[in-house]
């Protein structure tokens, strides 16, 4: 038991760097192989090499949930599952783990806390809001990585059971509305915070440019992104700034 916990801890630590060699050929594959390796060390020599090689094959999912596939694949190797079945398991988990992680983290937990932090800064909380963001975010982050690895290791080839865990379902249902409220509230507060030092004419200009920019980003979303638009508007402002006495 202590040996398994030690291997799981080593795998967890390596999971923090699962995207370290991200590439367009195997995506997270090499990183998942590195993270899975401590869980394979007690396989016999004939099984160890092929299992390590399989662990490094193509894999793509949300990085925080990659541990679920790693734990499940390692347990399947220990249970003597056929190589084809383990490959299929990894492939089958890519999509669900990607979409679940995107919904829970990138479109939920992260923007929710970021929105709250921006609102708190606008209300004068200062750097303490940023420290609280970092602390609270990472409680969820580390807990999710650890849970995913443990659940994968516990369930093996039947890991799909873990994806239906009620906490995941409830978190998905709560985080969407919470994120929408938090960022919605943060927008006017940050607008007031950032435009504080502006003269009245500049605030009117800000409202007009923001409205036109928003419409352009909505209408031309396929070709235009925030960076391109910001650079273009900044270039126009620079030219106007040089010419306007």
């Amino acid at each position, binding site marked *: 038991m202590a040996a398994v916990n030690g291997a799981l801890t080593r795998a967890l630590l390596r999971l923090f760097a699962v995207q370290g060699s991200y590439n367009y050929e195997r995506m997270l594959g*090499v990183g998942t192989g590195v993270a899975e390796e401590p869980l394979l060390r007690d396989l016999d020599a004939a099984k160890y090499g092929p299992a390590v090689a399989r662990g490094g094959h193509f894999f793509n999912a949300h*990085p925080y949930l990659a541990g679920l596939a790693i734990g499940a694949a390692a347990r399947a190797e220990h249970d003597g599952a056929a190589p084809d079945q383990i490959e299929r398991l990894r492939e089958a988990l890519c999509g669900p783990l990607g979409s679940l992680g995107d919904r829970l983290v990138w*479109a939920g937990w992260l923007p929710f806390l970021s929105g709250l932090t*921006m609102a708190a800064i606008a209300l004068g909380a200062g750097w303490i809001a940023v420290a609280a963001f970092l602390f609270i975010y990472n409680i969820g982050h580390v807990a999710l990585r650890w849970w995913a690895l443990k659940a994968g290791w516990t369930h093996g080839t039947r890991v799909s059971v873990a994806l239906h865990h009620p906490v995941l379902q409830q978190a998905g249902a709560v985080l969407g509305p919470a994120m929408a409220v938090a960022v919605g*509230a943060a927008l006017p507060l940050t607008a007031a915070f950032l435009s504080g030092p502006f003269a009245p004419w500049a605030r009117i200009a800000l409202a007009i440019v*923001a409205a036109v920019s928003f419409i352009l980003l909505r209408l031309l979303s396929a070709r235009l992104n925030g960076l391109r*638009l*910001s650079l273009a508007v900044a270039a126009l402002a620079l030219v106007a700034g040089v010419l*306007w006495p």
Partner: protein
Amino acid sequence: MILPLEVLLALVVWGTVVGVDLVSLPQMMIARPLVAGTVAGAILGDIPTGLKLGVVFELLQYDILPVGAVRYPEYGPATVAAVATAHASSGVLGLGLGALVGLVTGLIGGLTINLLRRVNSRVVHAAAAQLESGDPGALVRVHVGGLLRDALRAALVTIVGLVLAWLARPLLGNAITVRGAVLLAVAAVSTALAAGAAGTLRLVGRGPNLAWFAAGLGGGLVATLWLR
């Protein structure tokens, strides 16, 4: 922008750590502009500027949903460079020039991420036979190589950003009028707000969350007017 060597080194180290955190290690969100900007401000002894630029780039970050192999700008080291620029120029001019330097650095950072992934692909392709042999040493070497290349990439992006910060004041600060400086700041803040709103609406979609977003927006407006 003239900074003591130890402050410059601290900014380069911080920008590198921030750049590595974005994708490689440990993704604990110090790469978020709010965090990157606040700590850069603390290094410079100017936390309010760090918070302000952090919020501007955090709004721009909402334009990005890092799913799959999507390409995106890198706003972490960009925010560090932006804060260094703004610290050198007071008030509204600092905000505008800082945002401009940060946007250019973010663009460069995004290009280098794509380049790094291509280089990593070649390395993985070349090591395919070793990887297929099941040699864990080969796996670790390829992986650690990727991590080190990302650290080098992040350091270079930060250095380029700080060079731009150093050039911004003499090249633009003296040429631009007071009104022009305000226009530049207006451009940066307004497009960041628009990107933040548009990006959030993409996440929210047309379902029931749209009503929650409207409720939040209404609450934020009331709070803003009440606090004036």
